[in-house]
């Protein structure tokens, strides 16, 4: 009987974490480690004076983020991932990645990851930008929103928790929603030749 209660308690705990509506919650603590250098000179919006790397050469040697994986608990939170999918559209990520199928940018719903599929690696990719056109959003998107975007991007290939992943959207039925995507175990792949 005791085990039943324990299992029940754990299930209940998971469910209420999924349903947390965290409006003013602080994002995972990994963002200090992720500063690294800005790799892409592309910056959304006009160039402001306080962009450190304005105009200087492209440093390709920027580190790709610390190696120990960071757990992004937004991936168990339904509200955070639905915010992530809203931001994915608002910040025009769909312009290059479309709804995960790729276009100018690489597809995000398949299992091939060029710059790593761990949450902090995706965070670094968004923060620092990547060659071939991925702009650096540091200073443009607050960290909490970047982590929400990272959680949503991971849910596109089924890496986030299925019960918390966003369901069907009120748009044209292009692809399966994230909650019904099969988990694609991530594989690293080489940098594609710039088109």
């Amino acid at each position, binding site marked *: 009987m005791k085990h039943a209660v324990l299992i029940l308690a754990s299930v*209940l705990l998971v*469910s*209420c974490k*999924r*349903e*947390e*509506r965290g*409006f003013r919650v602080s994002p995972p603590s990994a963002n200090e480690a992720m500063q690294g250098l800005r790799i892409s000179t592309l910056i959304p919006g006009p160039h402001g004076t306080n962009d450190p790397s304005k105009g200087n050469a492209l440093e390709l040697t920027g580190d790709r983020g610390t190696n120990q994986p960071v757990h992004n608990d937004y991936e168990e939170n*339904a*509200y955070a*991932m*639905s915010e992530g999918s809203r931001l994915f559209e608002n910040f025009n990520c769909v312009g290059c990645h479309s709804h995960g199928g790729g276009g100018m940018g690489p597809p995000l719903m398949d299992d091939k990851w060029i710059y790593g599929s761990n949450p902090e690696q995706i965070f670094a990719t968004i923060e620092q930008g990547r060659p071939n056109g991925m702009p650096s959003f540091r200073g443009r998107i607050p960290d909490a929103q970047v982590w929400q975007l990272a959680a949503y991007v991971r849910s596109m290939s089924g890496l986030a928790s*299925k*019960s*918390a*992943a*966003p*369901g*069907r*959207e*009120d*748009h*044209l*039925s292009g692809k*399966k*929603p994230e*909650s*019904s995507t099969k988990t694609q175990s991530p594989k690293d792949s080489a940098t594609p030749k710039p088109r």
Partner: protein
Amino acid sequence: MTRTSHLQIRDFKGDIPRADAEQLERVWSRPKGLLGWLVTTNHKDIGKRYIVTAFIFFLCGGLLAALMRLQLMKPENSFLGPDLYNQFFTVHGTTMMFLFAVPIMEGMGIYLVPLMLGTRNVPFPRMNTFGYYIYLLGGILLFVSLFLNVGPDAGWFAYVPLSGPHYSPGKRVDIWSQMITLTEIAALVGAVEIITAVFKHRAVGMSLNRIPMFVWAQVVTSFMVIFAMPSIMLASGVLAMDRLAHVNTHFFNPAEGGDALLYQHLFWFFGHPEVYIIFIPATGFVSTIVETFSRRKMFGYLGLVLSLVSTAFIGFGLWVHHMFATPVAELGQGFFTGASMLIAIPSGIQIFCWLTTLLTGKPQLKTPLLWVLGFIALFVLGGLTGIMLASVSLDLQVHDTFFVVAHFHYVLIGGAVFPLFGAFYYWFPKWTGRMLSEGLGKLNFWLFFIGFNLTFFPMHILGLHGMTRRIYTYVVESGWGNLNLLATIGAGVMALSVIVFLTNVFVSRKSGVIAGANPWGAPTLEWGTASPPPPYGFLYLPTVQSRDPLWSDKDSPVIVGLSNTKREVLNTTILDAMPEHRYELAIDSIWPFALALAAGGSFIGAVFNAWAIPIGAALSFLVLSLWFWRGNEPKFLLEGIQHTPSSPSHPSKRVLEETPA
């Protein structure tokens, strides 16, 4: 098969064989202990459980309402955040409509209709038990999810696309839609029971024009349930399919041809009959109480029955008055305005008939009648604001504002909860054998009446001053602070009055005045048996020669010859209730409880995974086959449990301690 319908009651002659009360008690009572509690199919046990469980949900809903009122007490209050407030008002609305109002009215019907018809149980006893457990499961699901911060937060009618998969992440609305499915199954089960009982199990001689008003109200409500509930089950089921992973249908996706207005049509086609499903049984309580306490036959019996039936029919034709602000065609709106005003006529006839009965009789102002007078005062005000809402132009100004909140609380609390309290005071002696105290009763009434008006009358003014519904707070500049403070104080007074009622119940259960079989001198059959009634109901099944048997039937014969080794009742013809054939009822069985777990479990599983439906269905069918295969073997239960009839113990032991464990 001898055709007996042409015979008149007077033609039957014979002497009375000595009825064996102990044998009847042994055949009809349930096994002892927890298993007995689980397997019982006695309509009095299930009816009492429905009433007690629904009243507990009423208290929970009332608590949520009190918390909401605390949040709205002053502008820009930070007692509740928006997320919690949205969950509270949704669960408050859902609890009051689906877990309190409909079940308690059906619970009263399940307890009282068989007694008023002069029979021993409902026609399908095990299905009745199943209905209660499915309802209980739905209620537990809703409140456990509220405590886990998974409470539904899209409003009690969960309009799409806010409740859709895109704008309601997580499992909150899924839990709402599965809970709807569970409670609606219970309502449908109750409705089928009551309709079949009234058609087939009426006392000999109770032709259509001798059916008591309470039973008329219950059977009309049951027909409305039969036609209204499928609409909400379809709307919530299809919404769940839209939201569920691996299903992802597009019923309400505007981009793929879906339509948010279709959801509103489907919901309100159920929604408006639902509020009449709550109100019409209350008219049954009022008719019964008015007839008993004005000491005269009901005035305009035919008028009342016809207005019940016409309310039911028109009730299905006016759902679009909830959607006057949506882009629905103007001609359609005109039709529904007409229908919405038309339905005021039958309600008006009922009010006039009750007032005439009271004013031409010798009214005795006991507590039940006090509640009925409160009902007339408040329901008429709610009805008149309803006529205002029926007009499209006025509705455009007051739709979705606190004016509407005031309107439907006047017609639901004024129209249904007041008669319900009156009914508690009226039938409590029958349930427990003891009278509720008149002093506490009057205090309870006046506190509730004053608190109610303090709370909800200012909301009319707030609504006209632009305060919209379902806002968790309002800006200081709006100027709504004073009236909201007044409303919160009123809510406190109402809470106090409910506490007075609870003390009255718990005190009187043990030490109330002993009530005999008929403390109020009432005319209907349920007052012909002991209080609390034994498990078999009547020693001899009664017959009826007039509309008020206990008042005007002098020596109507009784029914003998039913077997006393089996649970047998008498089936009678539909029109003039002549004896037709004997009908053996099923005995207590564990399978209804098992099926409730299987079916309920499959619906709750469907919140998380679509495969729970086929697997759950297979499991439920397996349990159903066992129910069919083993259910009606008398040997199974009678041998298994040492069968000692529960002694006809002191009346006070029976009622409220059987609250669910």
